[in-house]
């Protein structure tokens, strides 16, 4: 008998505190696998956000630091500029990266900081009880849009990849999803490529991962997967938005 699948070395052997059916666990595992495969665990310094993934320090098995809400791209800038030989990535949610931290995101991309950002887009603030996020879909009901997101009052969902693609400094931007095995494989490929770009010194990469938040969305895990396929990715089309390195 041969063991063909085991826990990545970059993931601690502990229970995750995420809700049943949540996509964070899959994304954590993909990141850990990529770091193992690229043999960069010992030079990785990760920046965890404020939000559901605030507990990422407890799950990743490499060096991690905390960051104030929205500021991971600035914290990562400080780490990477001071230690260009280290591997630095941030893990951020939609509220963190595209609301409170929009300035830090835009300017890190514009300076083409040689860092990788994993941006988990689940269209709401999961940790605080499912409030409207900058990526909440038009008409989507959340804890703070009880009648559905109204563009007249709440504006439109922000497509961060497209927004950052207009900046000369952004190098690689791709939107992926983890709602089925095929897309999980695509997600892993994208994250690994972003990490490789940093190793090769190519500059700023961000992978936007569409993920489900069944509790925040008031759905069963299966319903939430279906909602990604039928609704979410219709508003947020998947694919490479920009790849300057090709």
């Amino acid at each position, binding site marked *: 008998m041969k063991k063909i699948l085991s826990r990545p070395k970059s993931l601690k052997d502990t229970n995750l505190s995420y809700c049943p059916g949540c996509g964070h666990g899959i994304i954590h595992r993909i990141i850990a696998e990529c770091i193992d495969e690229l043999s960069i665990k010992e030079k*990785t310094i990760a920046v965890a956000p404020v939000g559901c993934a605030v507990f990422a320090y407890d799950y990743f098995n490499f060096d991690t630091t905390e960051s104030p809400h929205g500021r991971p791209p600035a914290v990562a800038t400080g780490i990477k500029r001071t230690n260009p030989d280290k591997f630095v990535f941030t893990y951020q949610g939609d509220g963190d990266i595209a609301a409170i931290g929009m300035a830090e995101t835009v300017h890190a991309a514009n300076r083409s900081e040689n860092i990788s950002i994993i941006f988990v887009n689940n269209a709401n603030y999961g940790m605080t009880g499912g409030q409207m996020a900058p990526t909440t879909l038009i008409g989507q009901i959340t804890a703070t849009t009880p009648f559905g997101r109204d563009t007249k009052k709440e504006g439109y969902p922000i497509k961060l990849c497209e927004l950052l693609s207009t900046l000369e400094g952004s190098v690689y931007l791709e939107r992926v999803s983890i709602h089925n095995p095929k897309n999980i494989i695509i997600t892993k490929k994208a994250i690994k490529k972003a990490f490789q770009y940093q190793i090769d010194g190519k500059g700023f990469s961000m992978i936007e991962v569409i993920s489900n938040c069944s509790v925040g969305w008031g759905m069963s895990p299966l319903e939430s997967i279906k909602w990604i396929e039928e609704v979410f990715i219709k508003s947020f089309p998947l694919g490479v938005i920009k790849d300057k390195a090709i």
Partner: protein
Amino acid sequence: MKKLLKGNIALCEGAITAGLKSYFGYPITPQNEIPSYLSKKMLEIGRVFVQAESEIAAINMVLGAAVTGARAMTSSSSPGISLKQETISYMAGMQIPALIVNIQRGGPGLGNISASQSDYFQAVKGGGHGDYRIIVFAPNSVQEMYETAYDAFDLAEKYRTPVMILSDGIIGQMMEPVEFNRIEKKEKELKEKDWILNGCKNREPRSVKSLFMKEGILEENNIKLQEKYKLISENEVKYELYMTEDANIIITSYGISSRISKSAVKLARRNGIKVGLLRPKILWPFPYKIVDSLAKRNVKFLSVELSYGQMVEDVKLSLNRKCSVEFLGKAGGELITEEEIINKLRTL
């Protein structure tokens, strides 16, 4: 050999000599000499300079650089320092050493760009959210700007805490001769730290954070912080006494106002007024015991500040109503003059 320098530049030289690896800043008057000077100097010597998109980004870049063990700093002026407070609180909780420089200007709000000492409360009482303190230095000469910037990093690392130099637009921009009396620190001479993030090679992974959700853990961390602050309070009080032995009036004053106060003491002495000066060189920890030890019978205190009465509260706390404490100060306009101080002394 002495060199004629502005306070802000002397501060840069002190920090660089101490091994400053990374500087992050954002323009605001009256501290602009600092980023301008470092934008050239740091690159010349192969170190890091980044002009951030905001004061908030700058202090978070400092957090990132400092969590890897590098000596890092940012500088700003009053409104910009307000913006940095959230992250300073994080750094206190995460126990990350770094230097924050406040070249104070007039407030509240956008105020003006004249020298001021109105950020005393913010600096010495915590500044951001949560129970924490930072060590606050108050240099009163260009020479001390140099020396304090150098020494600040050692104290920050000794106690794993952010520290602040609380200066003002006049000390920052005036020119005085500086003696380069500190020895350059090379990166490799700096003590190896056992908490920094530098990749988990041959060791267990580390995480540096201020979030402690499990029951009892936050309180445990807070108690540790409080024990540290107690230790700092016992060991790091620093002050200057001038002609206090026979004084029956003692002026308490720091930074730029202590320079004016000292001249006023000299002038007053010539006019037969027995006055002395206590100048805290470090504002937190405050020299409570020293103030108290000066409280002989019939001694009066006068706190002279470029504010509407901030440090005077700590003077009163030290004395616990044993002596009368008067205040002379203003902010947002001109400096206090020696004559104003002497006129006040005559009324005591």
